[in-house]
């Protein structure tokens, strides 16, 4: 990391820390929470989807395990909240090893389909085991913070984003990260030069799952009540992937940019266009695919490279 980047990162942290002095309304803080939450989730997804090139469309599984883990370990087994959070994260890591073990034997769209299938199996199991999960009715999640709730959750989301960003920055320049990118570019070539592809992929999915599970637990704890169709829904998986791809899959800052734009846009669309907001959202996706296939940060990078040459 260069000195300039370090200074920029510190300045960004300071700005995020000072933001609640200006923004004090709960609604606005909750919108900011959502932006940072999805920035963190997008960054976590990006490790697998962007750097390693494995398009997961089942990250709702880890999000949901984080949410349900917190709720069930605390509510059903009486574990205190913070250890319950840790157990939820551990559960997500275990699940990621199981999912990775099966899904990583598959490539391309098959991998994506397998991840969706896992998330859907979990959602249906959660719906159909009312004694354990509360079923369709849902279950209560414990509050992680007391007092100044909106602000605390905002800070927690910022912290999670910073963590995810640090992991991403490390992955972008470490040996491990180069393994991942080699797998993305050509898995067979990577194998032939001695990269243990399966271990690298399972490890990165475990890291991604852990971060995603923390996000899910934060979400559950802010809303205090969760149902399967909300925290284990395909929509969550899609939104996480779209945030990262809109900003630029495989770039360090892409998912943050994507989260800021997409979450702000969907909040504005919801308020202005009401029922038409998904239509506008769909059109936005089409425009990105047609005109910004590398995402926003990716397109800026290409533009800068061309300028440098010209």
């Amino acid at each position, binding site marked *: 990391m260069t000195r300039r980047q370090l200074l920029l990162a510190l300045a960004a942290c300071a700005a995020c820390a000072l933001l609640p002095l200006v923004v004090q309304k709960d609604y606005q803080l909750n919108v900011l929470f959502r932006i940072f939450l999805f920035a963190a989730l997008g960054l976590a997804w990006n490790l697998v989807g962007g750097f390693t090139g494995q398009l997961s469309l089942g990250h709702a599984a880890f999000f949901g395990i984080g949410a349900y883990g917190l709720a069930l370990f605390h509510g059903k087994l009486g574990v205190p909240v913070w250890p319950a959070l840790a157990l939820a994260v551990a559960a997500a890591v275990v699940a990621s090893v199981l999912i990775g073990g099966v899904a990583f034997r598959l490539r391309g769209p098959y991998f994506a389909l397998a991840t969706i299938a896992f998330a859907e199996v979990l959602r249906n199991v959660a719906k159909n085991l009312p004694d354990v999960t509360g079923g369709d009715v849902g279950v209560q999640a414990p509050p992680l913070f007391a007092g100044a709730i909106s602000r605390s959750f905002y800070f927690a989301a910022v912290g999670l984003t910073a963590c995810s960003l640090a992991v991403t920055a490390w992955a972008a320049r470490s040996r491990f990260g180069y393994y991942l990118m080699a797998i993305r570019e050509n898995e067979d070539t990577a194998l032939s030069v001695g990269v243990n592809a399966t271990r690298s992929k399972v490890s990165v999915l475990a890291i991604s799952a852990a971060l995603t599970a923390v996000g899910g637990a934060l979400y559950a704890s802010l809303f205090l009540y969760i149902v399967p169709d909300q925290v284990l829904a395909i929509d969550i998986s899609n939104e996480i992937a779209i945030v990262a791809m809109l900003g630029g899959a495989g770039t360090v800052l892409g998912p943050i940019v994507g989260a800021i734009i997409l979450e702000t846009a969907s909040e504005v669309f919801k308020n202005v266009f009401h029922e038409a907001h998904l239509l506008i959202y769909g059109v936005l*996706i089409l425009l990105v695919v047609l005109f910004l296939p590398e995402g926003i940060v990716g397109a800026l990078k290409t533009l800068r490279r061309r300028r440098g040459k010209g």
Partner: protein
Amino acid sequence: MDKLWSGVQAVLNGLLTGSLYAVIGMGMALIFGVMRIVNFAHGAFMMLGMYVTYVLYERAHINPYFGFVGAALLLGALGYLIYHGLLRRIAERSDFMQILMTLGIALILSDGILLTFGADYHQINIPLLDKNVHLGRITLNAPWLVSFAIAAVLAIGMFLFVMRSSLGRALRAIAQNRYAAPLMGIDVHRVQALSFAMGLAAVGIAGGLLLPVFYLYPGVGDQFTLKAFVMVVLGGMGSIGGAAAAGLTLGVVESLTSLYWGNEWAIAVDFAIFLLVLSLRPAGLFGSQRV
């Protein structure tokens, strides 16, 4: 004995439901299996087919068992336009982009329908719905028998199209090698556009046939998108007949699951089978192709 008969009844009901799944799956087999377009809007297109048939019935009083032709024509035309307007432009890019694009199309379709028709559930009522055919202790619902017959004709037609017609042969050539095919004088985009149109026409027909025996709301297609993928993978990529067989299998499995475990487990069982097959036999149950 009663247990046995209820089992037989469930298997037969499953085959009837499965025949509609088969039509959905065959459309997807053409689009995803043969053309390799990862179509996450498949269910949304089916939903559109249902609404077209619904409008024809409500406004023009056309029986859905004729109205599905309208749905097929409209979706076929839409498929042709979408291929040339959108999918063709990203033909050379990664699967990522196709997934994103078709997700976008699905959102636009289902929200467009929501804005036009509202979120209410609809159901149509035609006299055929109350008719049953009795065979000893087995009772079969007449509309399902009609749709089974139509699905069977369609399945044979599609199979012959892909295996026998020159367009079908060109399509398989593209699937084998998309770089060599144009060198043999095949107009890749023309063939792909027509096949995509045909895949959507099939799912439009499935929608039309499903309308009388199901209920209608803007999100009705969502559950069928994943099922369609499941069928294509179970059937073996690129195999139209395999997808049809997988459709029938899913129908029976769901029907038996409902009978012995309860309806709510049907989807979970579908996906569990899907994962099991993917991990043990990635070429699919009925396929021989390597993935």
